[in-house]
């Protein structure tokens, strides 16, 4: 009974990430790539995202402190950040990146800064939610139990 409850809880957590707009169908693509040979593929990819993006975020923060702003550089960084966020299906983060680009296009530094604060907020919220999800998934028995191939 407990096992089923855990399983259901993990399922509900996962579904809410989609329902609340944190993740899009790209995340499902990542799940498709998970198998016996790569049982933790999604978690590994998400870990890589947070590791690499943290450096990028620092670079963007530093670039936003410059005066005058180098919008070309900001665009390049944001392209990378959006690319990575897209790869894991981070829907809200992606949306903020797109908004950032709009402000960059018209040279609106204030808009860029505001949007980037929001992007970082969404990024952090998603991180916490995914960490909780992966933890719950690991602690309970999973649907696709990994059995080594004979």
């Amino acid at each position, binding site marked *: 009974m407990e096992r089923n409850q855990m399983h259901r809880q993990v399922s509900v957590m996962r579904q809410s990430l989609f329902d609340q707009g944190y993740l899009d169908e790209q995340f499902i*693509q990542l799940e498709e790539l998970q198998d016996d040979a790569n049982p933790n593929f999604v978690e590994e990819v998400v870990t890589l995202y947070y590791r690499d993006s943290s450096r990028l975020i620092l670079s963007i923060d530093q670039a936003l402190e410059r005066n005058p702003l180098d919008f070309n550089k900001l665009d390049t960084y944001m392209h990378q950040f959006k690319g*990575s966020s897209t790869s894991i299906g981070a829907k809200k983060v992606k949306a903020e990146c797109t908004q950032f680009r709009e402000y960059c296009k018209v040279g609106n530094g204030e808009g860029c800064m505001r949007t980037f604060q929001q992007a970082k907020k969404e990024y952090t919220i998603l991180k916490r939610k995914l960490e909780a999800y992966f933890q719950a998934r690991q602690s309970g028995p999973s649907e696709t139990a990994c059995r080594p191939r004979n």
Partner: protein
Amino acid sequence: MAPAIEGMVPAIESSEGNNKMNKGYQYPSWKKKLRGLVVDNEELCRIVEKGIMGLCGVETQAVETGEAAVELIASGATFDIIVIDRFLPSMTGPETARKMREMGVESKIIGLFALYFEGDEEEFVAAGVDDFKEKPLSPNWLVPMLRELDN
């Protein structure tokens, strides 16, 4: 369970290709052995794009730079489909595509972008790409393209 992707056929027994049975979806297997190349400076993007190409039955390599891609082709490697990111560190995406065409590469070349910049599409198209698409690389548009290549 209905196939996730339009035009997907029901599961068929096949030893060919790189198809996987996963959660009820049957990704296609192809008559030919399809080979792909991903050119992207971001490790995460390379991993994911290579994985998705693989899911779609394409044996895929991934490189970080335009130079590495060109070198691979110069060494004799051939590909059916090449996806190139818009932002590469030194040799740009369009420059890479142009060089490949100059080298006689006739593969399908797709320019990929995460953020849209004015002039990018024109630059890529002028360089000889077949298409210019927004990330993520998706089976929804990849599979029909591969089906064409397979025929």
